[in-house]
């Protein structure tokens, strides 16, 4: 399973990365894209929307099914990846490059408590 050690993860298959400016970048994991198959549509949250940790905030649809994406931490949406509107298959090509949205976190401790790569792998193997 491809799970870069520099990232944090959730049991619901999101990855998160804390940037130098303190913002959190979010996407879905390589394991998730593999389960879902060819991506055909991505809906990101509105910029400015305030999210609570665990809230449904985006949707990825593959040829097989629609799947919800949950906010890994609480915060305000700063930016979304416009590329995914026209090229959702970028998630299949590289799930860790094809980020979905960036958040300004308002509960910084939530990020530190997310799963590390080993814990995510263990959770995903269950």
């Amino acid at each position: 399973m491809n799970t870069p050690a520099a990232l944090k993860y959730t049991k619901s298959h999101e990855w998160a990365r804390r940037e130098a400016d303190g913002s959190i970048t979010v996407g879905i994991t390589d394991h998730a894209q593999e389960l879902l198959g060819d991506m055909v549509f991505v809906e990101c949250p509105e910029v400015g929307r305030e999210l609570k940790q665990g809230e449904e905030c985006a949707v990825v649809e593959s040829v097989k099914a629609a799947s919800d994406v949950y906010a890994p931490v609480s915060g305000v949406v700063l930016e979304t990846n416009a590329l995914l509107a026209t090229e959702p298959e970028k998630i299949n090509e590289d799930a860790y490059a094809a980020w979905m949205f960036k958040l300004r976190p308002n509960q910084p401790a939530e990020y530190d408590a997310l799963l590390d790569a080993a814990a995510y792998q263990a959770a995903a193997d269950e």
Partner: protein
Amino acid sequence: MVDFGGWDMPLHYGSQIEEHHAVRREAGMFDVSHMLAVDLAGPDARAFLLRLLANNVDKLKEPGKALYSCLLNEAGGVIDDLIVYFFDPEFYRLVVNAGTAEKDLAWLEARRQALGQRLTLTPRRDLAIIAVQGPKARELVWQARPRWRADSEALRPFFSAMLPEETMVARTGYTGEDGFEISLPAAAAPRLWQDLAAIGVKPAGLGARDTLRLEAGMNLYGQDMDEHTNPLAAGLAWTIDRAGDRDFIGRDALATEPAQQMLGLVLLDRGVLRGHQVVNTERGAGEITSGGFGPTLNQSIAFARLPRGITLGDTVTVRVRDKDLRARVVKLPFVRQGKILV
């Protein structure tokens, strides 16, 4: 892998979209051995099928000719959809769906007994079926099995031929592309599959089979119709042959036109149409029966059961999560022989 009518079947081997494109552009193959061939033999075989099938087997005049038909119950509901292949008036082969095979056999056997007709029904569980589909499919089959060419080269679309070694080659399919469906003894199937794969025929799973048939405007049993569906509301009127006074089972129940009709939808907004989504029109609500992403159109498409009066070119809305997405009403199919028709 998924369970499909009791069979473990692959949804895809690699990328489902690549499998879809391979069939539209070159050639792909599907292991459809889950479908059951049933041989009907005996002096009353023709009379039996005239009574049992909603389409008219008397359209089949040349040996090898195939016909798509519904098997209806007395209430006009669809027990199954199938292809019947004609070889002579005392010998036909049906190919039925996996999930309905046992039910079909019980129904056919009960009707045979009730009608007192002289024929035997033989389920051919010894046969595997491989569908090779796409513009290059036939050439690649002949390349893999040169000895089949002489018997199958002259086949027109919807014709079939019985070859030696219990092999049947039919120019039929479920993709909207040219190709063959090949029935052969199960023991011979793996070798054929491997030989086809070795010359570039791409293995394709149930996922691509579904998007190909959706684009081709072909119904899926259990999703677009079942025993509670009026076939006239499921886009199947063309298969119900009510010419003359042929007394087929279900005919009487179809005397009145249903309030709904099946039409195609092409999504105008961004998103994906799926089965069971509600469609709102100026003449009332409808429902999507099959929907998804059509890789050839690079857009989402669907079959929808819509109120009568809705016509081609109308714009309707589909409720997807918390949004009403716009879709255009079109005639089926969406794609035929690699060409987009809508």
